C-alpha cells in the first residue's frame, strides 16, 4: 500500500517547515517535499514606505538574523542616496563589518551549540527528550558554558554597536549611527566582565578540534549522510579571498568548474531567476544560464569554503586547508561537513573581530557620507546562512515601489529538497516500520543547512513534531506526536 508520511513541523530550525515523504506499494520512497508553510510577505507590504525605513523594517523578518537584513538593506539604501560600498567612511565600513562579524559569530554559535550539537553528541536516533541543548548542558557542562558565552560575546558586539542584541539600529543612509567608545571597545579586550576576544579565538579552535576528532570517529556518517552533488555560490573579494560584507559573486559546480565568474553584485538580476512551485511558499533561485534543473546552488558556510581561494585570516585559512585535506575532496559536497565549515567561519569571524577591535578607526566619528540620490539600490552580503540579496526601487518622493529579497535559505531550497530525498531514500525506503528516529534523521539533514524559514518566506514557528501516515487514498492511518 502506498503511503504519505508528514513531518510537521521540522524542529530546531528557525521558522516553520514540513516534510512529506510519499512511499509506493512496496514502501520505497517515490518523492519527497520540503514545504515552507509560513508566509511573511515583506516584499509586498514594504511598498509605499519611505526608503530610510527599510533597514529598520526588514530586520523584523527574523529574530535570529536581523542584523544581516539590517546590513543588506542598509547597503541598498546607501545606493539610493548615491553611496556605493567603497564610498563609506573608513570608520563606518569597519563598524558595519564589526557588527556583521559579531552577528555571524553569535548566529553560528547558536546553531552549533544549541541546535546541532545534540545530533552530534547523542546521535541521530537519540530519545526525543535528549535532543536539546539542556541535555548538552547536563552532560557536557564546559561545552555548554562555552556555547552560551560565545553566543553572548557576539550578541554583546551587536549591542555595543546597535544598542540592542535583537532589532537594534546601527546603520543610517550613508553610514552608521555611532562609533564605539573606548570603554565599549575595552569591554571586549580586557576580559574583566566577559571572556575576551583572545578567549573566543581559543575556544573556536577547541571546537574545531572537537569536530575534526568527531570526523575521524564518525567518518562514514559525516562523509555520506545527506551528501549529494550541487553547485556552490558565495562572495569573494577581488583576489578571490572569502568575503562576507562586500565583493563579487562566484559560483562553481560540484566539480569546481566556475559557473558564475566573479560578477558585480549590482548585476545579480542578469544572472539569477526564481522558480515557483505550488507546494511551497519558498521560491527556487537558479542561475539563468544553466536553467532551473542545473542552475541551483548551495549557499552558506560549506559553499563559501568551496568557492573561495583562501580565507584572509591565518588560523581560519590553516583550518580551511585541513578541512579539504581531511575530507579528501577538491569540492566538498558532504552536507554534514557544513557544521565543520560553520565552525571555521566562527574562527574566521573571531580573528576579524580582533583585527577590528585593535583598529583605532572604530573610535572615530567620521561616520556618514552623502551622495547624489538614485532610484535603485542593491545590497548583497554573505549572511550566516549564505548569500542575502536586497533590492529596492523608489519613486521620486523616496517611497519604495518595488522590493526583491532573495534570502540565503531560499538559495538553499532545492539543495535542502535534494538532501531530504537522499536521506529519506537511504533511511526510510523499504524499511517496513517507520520509526521516529528515522524521521529525525531527515530533520538532522535539514538542520545542517541552518535554514531560517521565517526569513525565506517573509511567524513564529510552533515546535511540536508531528508525523502523519496516509494510505494511497489519502486516508490518515496513524499520527505520532512528541
Amino acid at each position, binding site marked *: 500500500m502506498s503511503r504519505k508520511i508528514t513531518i510537521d513541523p521540522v524542529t530546531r530550525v528557525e521558522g516553520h517547515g514540513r516534510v512529506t515523504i510519499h512511499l509506493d506499494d512496496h514502501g520505497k520512497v517515490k518523492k519527497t517535499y520540503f514545504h515552507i508553510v509560513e508566509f511573511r510577505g515583506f516584499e509586498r507590504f514594504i511598498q509605499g514606505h519611505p526608503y530610510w525605513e527599510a533597514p529598520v523594517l526588514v530586520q523584523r523578518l527574523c529574530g535570529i538574523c536581523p542584523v544581516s537584513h539590517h546590513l543588506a538593506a542598509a547597503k541598498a539604501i546607501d545606493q539610493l542616496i548615491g553611496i556605493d560600498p567603497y564610498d563609506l567612511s573608513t570608520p563606518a565600513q569597519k563598524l558595519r563589518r564589526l557588527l556583521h562579524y559579531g552577528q555571524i559569530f553569535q548566529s553560528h554559535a547558536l546553531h552549533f551549540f*544549541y541546535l546541532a550539537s545534540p545530533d552530534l553528541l547523542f546521535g541521530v536516533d537519540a530519545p526525543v*527528550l535528549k535532543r*536539546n541543548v*539542556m541535555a548538552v548542558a*547536563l552532560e557536557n557542562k564546559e561545552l*555548554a558554558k562555552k556555547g*552560551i558565552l560565545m553566543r*553572548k560575546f557576539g550578541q554583546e558586539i551587536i549591542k555595543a554597536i546597535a544598542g540592542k542584541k535583537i532589532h537594534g539600529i546601527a546603520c543610517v543612509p550613508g553610514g552608521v549611527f555611532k562609533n564605539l567608545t573606548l570603554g565599549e571597545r575595552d569591554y571586549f579586550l580586557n576580559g574583566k566582565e566577559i571572556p575576551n576576544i583572545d578567549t573566543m579565538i581559543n575556544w573556536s579552535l577547541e571546537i574545531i578540534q572537537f569536530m575534526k576528532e568527531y570526523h575521524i570517529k564518525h567518518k562514514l556518517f559525516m562523509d555520506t549522510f545527506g551528501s549529494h552533488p550541487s553547485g556552490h555560490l558565495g562572495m569573494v573579494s577581488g583576489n578571490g579571498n572569502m568575503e562576507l560584507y562586500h565583493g563579487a559573486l562566484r559560483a562553481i559546480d560540484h566539480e569546481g568548474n566556475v559557473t558564475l565568474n566573479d560578477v558585480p553584485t549590482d548585476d545579480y538580476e542578469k544572472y539569477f531567476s526564481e522558480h515557483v512551485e505550488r507546494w511551497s511558499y519558498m521560491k527556487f533561485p537558479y542561475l539563468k544560464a544553466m536553467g532551473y534543473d542545473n542552475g541551483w546552488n548551495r549557499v552558506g558556510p560549506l559553499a563559501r569554503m568551496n568557492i573561495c581561494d583562501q580565507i584572509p585570516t591565518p588560523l581560519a585559512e590553516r583550518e580551511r586547508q585541513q578541512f579539504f585535506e581531511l575530507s579528501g575532496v577538491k569540492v566538498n559536497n558532504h552536507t554534514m561537513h557544513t557544521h565543520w565549515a560553520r565552525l571555521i567561519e566562527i574562527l574566521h569571524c573571531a580573528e576579524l573581530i580582533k583585527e577590528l577591535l585593535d583598529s583605532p578607526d572604530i573610535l572615530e566619528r567620521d561616520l556618514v557620507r552623502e551622495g547624489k540620490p538614485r532610484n535603485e539600490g542593491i545590497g548583497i552580503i554573505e549572511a550566516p546562512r549564505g548569500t542575502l540579496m536586497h533590492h529596492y526601487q523608489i519613486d521620486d518622493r523616496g517611497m519604495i515601489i518595488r522590493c526583491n529579497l532573495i534570502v540565503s535559505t531560499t538559495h538553499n531550497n532545492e539543495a535542502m529538497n535534494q538532501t531530504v530525498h537522499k536521506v529519506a531514500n537511504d533511511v526510510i525506503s523499504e524499511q517496513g516500520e517507520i520509526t521516529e528516529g528515522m524521521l529525525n534523521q531527515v530533520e538532522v539533514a535539514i538542520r545542517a543547512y541552518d535554514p531560517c524559514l521565517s526569513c525565506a518566506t517573509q511567524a513564529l514557528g510552533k*515546535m511540536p*513534531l508531528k508525523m502523519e501516515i496516509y494510505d494511497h487514498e489519502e486516508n490518515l492511518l496513524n499520527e505520532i506526536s512528541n
Partner: protein
Amino acid sequence: MIMKKTSSMKSVIRSGQQLLADPETLVIPGSILIVGIGNSGRADDGLGWEFINKISNREEFDLEYRYQLQVEDAELIASYEQVWFVDASHEQYPDGLRVSKVKPIGNFTYTSHQLSPEVVLFLCQDLFGKFPDTRLIGISGENWNLGEPMSDLAKNGLKKALEFFNQHQIITLNER
C-alpha cells in the same frame, strides 16, 4: 528589548507584608534583577513588560524584557543575588496575582525555544554552581489577541502587583 541599569549596589528587601503565596519574606543582600516576560503586542501577554515599564525609574534594579526565557538567561541570572520574574498567567488567581518562590527543577521538554523559570534556575545551578533567590509574580490575564488593549482584569492585577512590589520596598544598604 533590554533596559539594563548598571547596579552593583547592595540591596535588601524590607520586610513589610507577607508574600501572597510564599510567607517567606527575608532580608536579602545583593544585586537585584527584575525580568518582565511577555509580548506587548498580544494584549494581556504584555503584563510582564508593562510591570517593568512602571518601575523603570527605579535605579536600584537591573531590568530586562524577554519574549521568553532561554538558555543564556541562566548565565545572566548567575551574577545576581536576587531575581524576580514577572509574567502574565492564564490562571485566574483570587487576588489577581500569585507570588511564589522559584526552585530549580530540571523539567526539560523537547524544545529549548522557551524555558520555565524553574529550568533556568536549574541550568544556572548546574552550569555555574549557584543560583539566585528567585520569585515569580504571575498576574492573571484573559485576553491574548494580537494588537488588542489590555483587559480590565489584567490592569487590576498589574496594579495589585505593583502595590505588592512597592509595599515590599527594596532599598539599598547605603540608604538603610
